[in-house]
């Protein structure tokens, strides 16, 4: 696969904070929390990558912890930390509650100019696992563009952009 800068033109970007694992068919397989790549460079992203990052940022932010933005975030992490999650059904339950907040936040940020592949549509749970001291949740994220092409993040000089 090759990087196509033109695909990012006309869009607003975010810093990449979760490194994508992309298939040979250029499909976003999963995101790993890594700020810098192997070369030590930072990257920016748009499209599905950015949507996924927004989703994760909101999910992982504890509601009430951002000063002067008391409604931003979810109770997902606090619920996990409280010990409520003992089995997969519990994990599904707390994620479902969190998804409601995430949808509300992401939808409030969308405008008419937001590209369809950056508009949130749904989050489908593909897998859960709960063991003592460990929980795993696999979520498939959908944008409003069902045919969206994953846009690989790119390294650019942010100052001159």
């Amino acid at each position: 696969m090759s990087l196509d800068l033109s695909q990012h033109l006309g869009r607003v970007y975010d810093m990449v904070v979760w490194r994508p694992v992309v298939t040979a068919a250029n499909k976003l397989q999963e995101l790993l929390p890594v700020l810098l790549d192997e070369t030590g460079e930072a990257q920016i992203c748009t499209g599905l990558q950015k949507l996924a990052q927004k989703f994760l940022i909101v999910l992982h932010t504890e509601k009430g912890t951002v000063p002067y933005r008391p409604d931003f975030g979810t109770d997902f992490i606090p619920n996990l930390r409280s010990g409520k999650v003992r089995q997969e059904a519990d994990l599904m339950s707390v994620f479902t509650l969190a998804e409601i907040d995430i949808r509300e936040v992401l939808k409030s940020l969308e405008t008419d100019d937001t590209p369809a592949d950056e508009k949130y549509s749904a989050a489908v749970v593909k897998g859960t696992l709960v063991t003592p001291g460990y929980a795993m949740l696999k979520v498939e994220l959908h944008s409003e563009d069902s045919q969206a092409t994953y846009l690989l993040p790119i390294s650019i000089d942010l100052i001159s952009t």
Partner: protein
Amino acid sequence: MSITLTPLVELPQTEVDDARTLLRAIVSEKYPGIDLDATLFESLLLDVLGTVYAAVSTYVQDVDNSTSLQKIQEDPESADADLVDLRAANFRVTRQTATRAGGEVVIVISRQLATTIPAGSQFTANGTTFQTEESFAARLAESNLLYDTDRLLESAGTNRYKFTVTVTATDTGAAGQLKQGAKLIPTTPPAYFVEAYAASDFTGGRDGQSNTELQAELTSGLSVKSIASRLSVLPTIKTANVDEYPEAAEFADIVAGSVIGFGDEELSVDTTSLFPIRKATRAELYVKTSQQIQLVEYTVAATLVGTYDGFGVWQFVLDKSEAAGVYEIKRVVKTTADADSTGYEVTSDFRGVDLTGEGYIPAITQNLEGAYSAYQTITVKIVDTDTDINSLTIGTSSQEYLVTVAYQPQLANIQTFLSRSDVRNPNGDVLAKAAVPAYVRIAMKIVDDSEVEFDEDPIRLAIQAYIGQLGFAGRLYVSQLTSEIVQALPASAVLSNIYASLRVRAPSGTNLYVRNEHLLEVPYEPDELVSDKTVAFFVNDEDIIIEVQ
């Protein structure tokens, strides 16, 4: 400076929201490609920088509010005091600091015994604590008075001996201004203690000047420091350099002044002229030097000058040093009388002038002209119903009395200042006089449902504070008095009725009365030197009558 950066977690929400909005616009304009919604950029730029920006913006706003003259005038009390001081200094105005009140206390003991009051001895009155700054010793004979702090123990009646000590309030503020006769309670009473009371009104206690009061003086600070115009006379006096003019030590406490000049009907008539004209080279400054009329006690030597109904008529003179700014003789008693004694009837109160002495003296040609000024003298006659005069000789026999007078202080000092060659107007002179007093009398009925004993002090203090700060207002609305009273009432009480009246004591001694349900307006009687330009309102504590049901 007390303004500091607000902690980042204590900022107003609106300030942070505005900062975020502004930063969003700035960043978007500069870097249009950056997504600022639920992204890392938002966390770094808007959340962090926005909060810091809001804190700095709030700080700048606080500094601006405290240094902008317009902002200070709009909301003086929210401005930082230190910055207001800096701003006021640009107008040559200095904030008056709080001072402590002080005065003489009469201590009465029941034995003729040498007594020592150590330094630091404390007395309390009206919730205020006073203490002696030095050690005082009451001696039995004048020959034993060796130091300034030695006081003669004098007879004050049967089994009563008195001496005085000087005390100062431990805290600053006007609360320390005791009235003459106010009882004080010693923390450690001396042996054979009977009572202690204020010998005269205490002076000097002052609350620190608020931002509101300070900014009200800014316009006066701008004025030229000369007495060439009406507007500049009082500021010139109040801001006189104490190092250069020692008599100006307490001029900053002057409440208000009113200048009468050429063209004013209230100006004294030039009796040296063939024509009935006002003095062309004279200005008269009526001053209200204190918020309340002061009382002071003198010991005078009176001469028996006649008889009345079998009793002796005694006469004494208050010279100009004692009579400066004096309005009325409040009480005349023997030196052995109790503090509560009402005194003898004053049958004659004649005002004269004493134009002797050093320095420049304004041309005063009639006694009325000098009334209430620093040149006033008072010749008083009383009828003493206690002294047996059978063995006394009219015209020769004399005895001492204690005389309490009501006055406005500082008149002699103000006149000294105005008469200085480098101060006075080269075209004429200025005669300073105490403001013609308008005594307000207020009677009210209060209905209180509380079972707790009603505390009148807040009402009295509120009325005294309101009337005390009035200058030459000319009018006093009863509704405003009502408002002050209602604000001071506890929640359980209501004001059901109020009646107010006015007594103006003209310089001639004539009393002019005003009675009106709604408005007490100073009468216009220029021949009596009475008008809204010469008269100031005062209220004595005994003229505030409160009936609680």
